[in-house]
């Protein structure tokens, strides 16, 4: 057994030191999935997705599918947009980019509890105690990561929220959570490279010895996450998190708040090749006093950042490769409660999508005159997920193998929303 004291160790060297550990983890990794797509189809895929997650359940009847005149329509008025639809008067800047986004007004789901709704909208599956399904970000990262060999930071980043986990794909596909200030804790070891490298080599030995006991796949997962962490610690790409590097005017345009900074960070991450980014804007669980909260707090912030993101991606020629998804866990009741609020409502609500070749400026589906039900065909979380995956060049024939050995089609066999697909 030879051991060289390294000098001027580079990142690549560290990688090789840990490679042994991940090679041992290989069999477990193979268990996680089996890819049945055509590699050629995916080669050169540079696509990414940004999910704008509206935690708490946004009142889509007040934003995207207004019912002026209906008893439960609320006080907001519709305004014209650059697309073929009207939206809420308090989203004037978003209105100007609606030629690039489309509204699906016929979402109809069954999960009106936060936790269940969050899980369902992120995975395309209802919670099931025996199978832990992977979320959007994990699925997309898993499918596109192999085509981004240059990417040193995690392929699934969640800004300002925790998103949902990687399920049976394993911890290595977990969202990397950061705050919108871009600061990542404990990034530096503060030791000379040779000592870092010695530590890593020794760690590899202990990890492998324990993995050899075959006590469970989480031991292998640990080794994989170690490697990802080391990649990130030594990567210049971490600069992408530093939104303060942007021109002051850009920071102004997006908005000097968490959501604005998060959206700006998302664009920076797309630029270096991160395939999936989720940006959280919470505060939509408006059981009380919904209208002042929307008008004075949620909508101005969202209007500014969301429109800035679409404009910026357009100007940089990136929108054609970047899918944008705006959604929450459900909508809110087409009925105003005793506290001047709206409660949870999943039966008829809206989401907004665009970019990555999805058609903009359209509305898909509709609800009845007071917004209480969908008229005609409705769409589900799995349909939306299938459509987004398709736009990213991920084959809907992709199968995963869950830990129990059962094959599972990507996006729970959702059907394409054809109107959005060119």
């Amino acid at each position, binding site marked *: 057994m030879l051991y060289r004291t390294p000098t001027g160790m580079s990142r690549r060297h560290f990688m090789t030191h840990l490679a042994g550990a991940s090679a041992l983890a290989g069999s477990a990794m193979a268990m996680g999935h089996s890819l049945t797509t055509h590699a050629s189809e995916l080669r050169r895929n540079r696509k990414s997705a940004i999910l704008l997650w509206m935690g708490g359940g946004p009142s889509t009847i007040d934003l995207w599918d207004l019912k002026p005149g209906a008893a439960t329509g609320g006080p907001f008025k519709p305004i014209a947009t650059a697309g073929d639809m009207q939206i809420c008067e308090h989203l004037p800047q978003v209105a100007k980019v609606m030629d690039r986004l489309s509204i699906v007004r016929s979402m109809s789901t069954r999960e009106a509890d936060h936790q269940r709704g969050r899980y369902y909208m992120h995975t395309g599956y209802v919670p099931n105690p025996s199978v832990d399904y992977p979320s959007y970000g994990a699925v997309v990262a898993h499918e596109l990561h192999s085509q981004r060999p240059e990417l040193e930071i995690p392929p699934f980043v969640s800004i300002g929220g925790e998103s949902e*986990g990687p399920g049976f794909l394993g911890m290595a596909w977990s969202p990397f959570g950061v705050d919108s200030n871009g600061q990542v804790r404990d*990034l530096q070891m503060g030791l000379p490279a040779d000592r870092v490298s010695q530590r890593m080599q020794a760690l590899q030995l202990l990890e492998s010895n324990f993995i050899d006991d075959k006590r469970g796949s989480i031991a292998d997962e640990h080794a994989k996450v170690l490697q990802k962490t080391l990649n990130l610690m030594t990567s210049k790409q971490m600069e992408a998190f530093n939104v303060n590097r942007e021109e002051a005017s850009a920071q102004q345009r997006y908005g000097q708040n968490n959501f604005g900074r998060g959206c700006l960070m998302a664009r920076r991450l797309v630029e270096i090749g991160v395939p999936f980014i989720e940006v959280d804007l919470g505060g939509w669980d408006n059981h009380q006093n919904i209208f002042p909260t929307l008008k004075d707090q949620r909508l101005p912030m969202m209007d500014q950042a969301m429109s800035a993101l679409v404009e910026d991606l357009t100007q940089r020629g990136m929108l054609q490769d970047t899918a944008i998804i705006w959604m929450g866990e459900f909508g809110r009741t087409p009925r105003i409660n005793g506290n001047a609020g709206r409660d949870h409502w999943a039966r008829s609500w809206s989401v907004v999508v665009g970019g990555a070749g999805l058609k903009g400026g359209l509305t898909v589906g509709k609800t009845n005159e007071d917004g209480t039900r969908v008229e005609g065909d409705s769409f589900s979380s799995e349909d939306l997920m299938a459509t987004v995956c398709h736009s990213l060049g991920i084959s809907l024939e992709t199968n995963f193998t869950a830990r129990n050995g059962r094959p599972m089609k990507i996006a729970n066999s959702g059907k394409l929303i054809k109107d959005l697909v060119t």
Partner: protein
Amino acid sequence: MLIKQKVSPLIFATILFVTSIALGQAQREDRIQIPQVVKINELMEQSWSDQEVDPSSPAEDGEWCRRLFLDVLGRIPTVDELVDFTGDKSPNKHEALVDRLLYDDRYTEQFARNWTTIWTNLLIGRTGGNDQNSMISRPGMQKFLRDSFARNKPYDKMVYELVTATGTTAPNTANFNGATNFLIDKVNEETAAQATAATSRIFLGLQIQCTQCHNHPFNDWKQQKYWEMNAFFRQTRSLRNSAATGGPLGPELVDQDFAGESGNPEEADIFYELRNGLVKVAFPVFVEGQVAKKSGYLNEVNRRVLLGEFMLKSPHLSKAMINRTWAHFLGFGFTKPIDDLGPHKPPSHPEVLEYLADEFRSSQYDVRRLIKWISLSRPYSLSSKPNSTNAKDDPLLGDAPKFSRYYMRQMQAEQLYESLVVATQADNLSGSYEERERMKNQWLQQFSRTFGTDEGDESTSFNGTIPQVLMMFNGELIRQATSGTNQTLIDLIVNDPKKSNREKVDYLFLAGLARRAKNDEWVLANQFVEARRGNAVDALKDLWWVVLNSNEFIFNH
């Protein structure tokens, strides 16, 4: 620099560890004679044979000792505690150790701290009370729980006190009752939806929250049942600033006369809406059918007190606690999730669940005895390594657990914190109990996030992901533990002139992993020293860092 020859493990003076006791063979000769343990083992052995799996061999003594400390006290054992146990030749040493952790005064505070942590997280979450505006007093909740667990208060009494509590939430306020912290922020908003859901779920294992809005699609719970349970909480209010009896002001949980939604306190009704728009009326009726008087006047009926009494008689009270405690020790419960024991969820081992529930009730809900039965049972004694018949017995694969081996799992954030404190002896600067809890809580915040919804749900990033690894690689706690200042363990060990390097290396492995270094690890340690040009102190510090960062350390196995 290259080390050309094969490095001999004997490069250091190899005085064999004086107390060289085999940590290995742990043939559990001592079949525990406690009747409850005998019965659990009988039932489990029957189920293994029915399911055609052989249980794994017994865990090594060191492993078993480590898991027991983690589960009962919330931390790993010190080297002294470990060697005391592994060196003990007496046949009943397992039972003796369990008794020591449960009943010896030296461990009372640590025992109470661990179970207080677990129950605080359960009752108010990891973030409850952290927000400036919160009515919850985290120290108040902890004080109540700590008193309960330190005195081994019967579990049914503890639950009754939590469900019926009135008083202020914060210590040192007039009329203080820490138990109020469970409900203080769950009764005001949305007609006590959270109080209804949390009480049913945590103490009875019944998930009725979905039936708030509709009949449950898969089980027998009807919307009516939810609102009848909900009616028990409608006399209760949280007052943000109580003007109670002259003491400092603070949030207070009180019961008041309830006029009912139609304004007739003689028959204090509540209304709810069916999905088809019809409105129905509800009065307090317990999930098992016991009916309360309809009056909203407190002097006629205190609805929460009545609810507490109904709960004391419910068979679900005992079952839910058994499932929770079993899952705490064995990694999985008899149902998944563990707090769903509804009629649609057949448990994996109904006989064990029923038997233990009966025994727990007969024992007057003695939590320590329950812990003793489970921790001395055969399933808890098994190795986490699979054998040729049970490799597929892994509930992560989706099937029901067979408990034919110990399921490895990651430590909780609190267990890691306490283990690092012990393993590094970084504790000698510590202040009072409250001060320590405050520091721990502050450290935990980096991993906690709330979703800001009406349910107050939250998540942790201490789940094996990158932020956790970064903390273990580079965080302040680890830096302190491995830098060798302030009389930390590493400082004491690496500078101990009486210990050989082999002893020092073994000591670090025992402290972190409850075993000695294997041969290849010992070779590596020598290479460390060589690479550091003979500076054994620095080399051992790096080795300690490696031990603490290994999968074997972070997992309870």
